[in-house]
């Protein structure tokens, strides 16, 4: 059956055509641009170096968490524990440095290891007993937060400036943590679209049974995605420690909703099988610019929340409309 036809080599490859076309990015970029223009008109100070560097300084945590969450949504899962896991990692780092006198790198590794373990536990339980990850991660959310309080006696630990280099701008207001987060995004996008692992994730999210019956065991891949989510929560914890120069066991409370919102605004499907890291990056930018802009024009906290919530809903409605139309035309 390997009779090769000579006419076949000439077909143009549709780059990334299976996933999201350029059109999606244009839509998201347009929305972002519109938002920037709007806030520039409403506030004289918005379009400034200051805003830009503040944003670049603040979003790396959200960026890396959203990358992990995108992969999880693609396999049809969800992880509500990311905020708590971040706090768990931060607590582990603070205990290692303040309590045990460890130096920065081993402490950082310990934090990341704890977070990765937490993610692996969520993934393993989800896969082994076929429980929805929603409920497993809800349990892990509570447990991770509890362990964080236990370790720190519920107190914020001041770590000092040993991690500060991560969030100190090196050029144009850009810090090493922002650069690391960007690298994570580009690597993850490449992994998703160009590797066997990425293909399997999309396959699992589209039709797990078909993947299994094609002779591929989906379980290790699913667990691995949750482990990666944990690892990235650990990295985000380091970014946060470096910015605050402290480790707070209350850190990241409610962060999971912000992360999921960013991913969904980017157009990743909650039903699995469809998503893009680059789109998620736009989602992060949109939600962050919105927050920064609203703050600058002096919106009150309640107003900010109402508007942010509305933007999330509108984004999902637009996305649903778009995919319906795409299906009809297909």
């Amino acid at each position, binding site marked *: *059956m*390997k*009779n*090769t*036809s000579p*006419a*076949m*080599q000439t*077909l143009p*490859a*549709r*780059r990334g*055509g*299976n996933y999201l076309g350029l059109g999606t990015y244009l839509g998201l970029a347009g929305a972002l641009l519109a938002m920037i223009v709007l806030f520039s008109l409403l506030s004289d100070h918005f379009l400034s170096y200051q805003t830009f560097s503040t944003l670049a300084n603040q979003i790396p945590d959200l960026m890396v968490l959203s990358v992990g969450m995108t992969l999880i949504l693609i396999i049809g899962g969800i992880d509500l524990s990311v905020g708590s896991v971040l706090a768990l990692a931060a607590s582990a780092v603070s205990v290692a440095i303040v309590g045990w006198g460890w130096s920065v790198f081993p402490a950082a590794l310990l934090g990341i290891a704890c977070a990765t373990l937490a993610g692996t536990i969520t993934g393993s339980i989800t896969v082994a007993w076929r429980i929805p990850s929603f409920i497993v991660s809800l349990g892990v959310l509570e447990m991770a937060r509890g362990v964080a309080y236990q370790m720190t006696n519920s107190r914020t630990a001041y770590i000092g400036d040993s991690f500060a280099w991560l969030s100190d701008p090196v050029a144009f207001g850009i810090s090493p943590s922002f650069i690391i987060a960007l690298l994570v995004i580009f690597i993850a996008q490449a992994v998703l679209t*160009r*590797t*066997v*692992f*990425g*293909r*399997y994730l*999309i*396959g699992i999210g*589209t*039709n797990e*049974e*078909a*993947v*299994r*019956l*094609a*002779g*591929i*065991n989906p379980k290790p891949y699913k667990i691995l995605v949750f482990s990666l989510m944990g690892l990235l929560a650990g990295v985000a914890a380091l970014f946060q420690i470096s910015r605050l120069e402290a480790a707070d066991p209350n850190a990241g409370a409610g962060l999971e909703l912000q992360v999921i919102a960013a991913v969904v605004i980017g157009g990743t499907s909650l039903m699995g*099988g*469809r998503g893009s890291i680059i789109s998620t990056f736009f989602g992060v930018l949109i939600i962050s610019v919105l927050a920064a802009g609203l703050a600058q024009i002096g919106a009150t906290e309640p107003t900010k929340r109402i508007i942010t919530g509305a933007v999330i809903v509108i984004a999902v409605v637009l996305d649903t409309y778009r995919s319906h139309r795409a299906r009809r*035309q*297909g």
Partner: protein
Amino acid sequence: MSASVQTAVLSVSGIGKTYAQPVLGDVDLTLMRGEVLALTGENGAGKSTLSKIIGGLVTPTTGQMEFQGQPYQPANRTQAEKLGVRMVMQELNLLPTLTVAENLFLDDLPRRAGWIDRKRLRENAIKAMAQIGLEAIDPDTLVGDLGIGHQQMVEIARNLIGDCHVLILDEPTAMLTSREVEMLFEQITRLQARGVSIIYISHRLEELARVSQRIAVLRDGKLVCVEPIARYNSEQLVTLMVGRELGEHMDMGAREIGEVALSVKGLSRAGKVENVSFDVRRGEIFGISGLIGAGRTELLRLIYGADSADSGGIEVGQPLKAVTIRSPSDAVEHGIALITEDRKSEGLLMSQSISANIALGNMHSISKAGLVNAGDELKLAQRQVDAMRIRSSSPTQLVSELSGGNQQKVVIGRWLERDCPVMLFDEPTRGIDVGAKFDIYALLGELTRQGRALVVVSSDLRELMLICDRIGVLSAGRLIDTFERDSWTQDQLLAAAFAGYQKRDALLNEAAPRNDS
């Protein structure tokens, strides 16, 4: 009834429908009172579109319709149903967790002061079921507890509540056992006697010849004939449908039957499969026949490790060696492939391209160090598209846009890249049009010539008799008998299929539980 047969109930003229491309063009058709009109054609010929237009689900792009002498332009299904034009779709529209009576009257439950009037509901349901001769089914039975055949009857009964002048049945026998088919035919005759006109869509030609008086054949969206069905034999009808001759006899080509490639030893799974053993040799097609629910699919899934066996095992390889198979990935490692019955839910990534679907399971040949080579992926897909003659615009086309036959070829194409010496096919031609069927048969022949051992499960006995070297018959989970080519008859095979069910009534009771107590 003979006088009224001449009255037209429904006529359509110049009906056409265009989506991105025209799918139906310029159809003229008249339906007489009390007749059964067979509507047939290959998949994608426009049967469903035409029936949906009549049923009010789709608005035609061109043409007019007349119903009982009045212009007929249903805006939606409800409007068509009000006038008495009803449609039973392929997928049943019942709620399995509700009772038969509740399903029958779901849109208008009898109420008293806001509460459901159970007594009246029950009475009405008994009346409705009696209309089609199903007094035997207790209306308080949960629909989910009924056999699929009876569910279909309930669906039909629901459509007969209120006025019904035209009833469209879309592939009503696809899921039925032959006994249930008989039951359906009896009901069709009754309805006909009541003056109901029926449009019967199917591509099972022998059925059409039995129930219908006239046949309408669609090909590529055009009506190619409307004639009394008695004028054609099935070969002529196939020619009309596909527009070319197809040989009735299948020459699978010269091939060598070699060593045993797969030996199944006493496989069992509680309640499904009981102590099944057989051998399949290289170059051989071993057919598995039996009624629906006899354990055919379950047997293949056990061999493939998709479900785990309670006892028994398999041997593969040369020389034969017992292997442990706990999962499909184990099976694939030992050179066993399974092409599942349900392509959509178990075979394909519907929202993905042909190339992504073929690549799934072949990553080793198109990737290096975990990185997919996009060029190789496309070449692989193109190779299979050419080899399998998959009709598509390009390998990047989405599989959801392909016809059933071409989707099946994508699934098979995925496996051809891996040299699996043992291939298990579960209903490889279900829901596939006649032309594509013969492509699949030719492919099976080609696979045996390469020395592979094939196991083919099919509900179509004639298909098995056409392509198999041996046929094993499963009945109630047990392998009753194995027949050699040239030593079988259709009657023997059928008798074996029923042999496992000791009394015929056992089947009936299973299908329709009654609350006699």
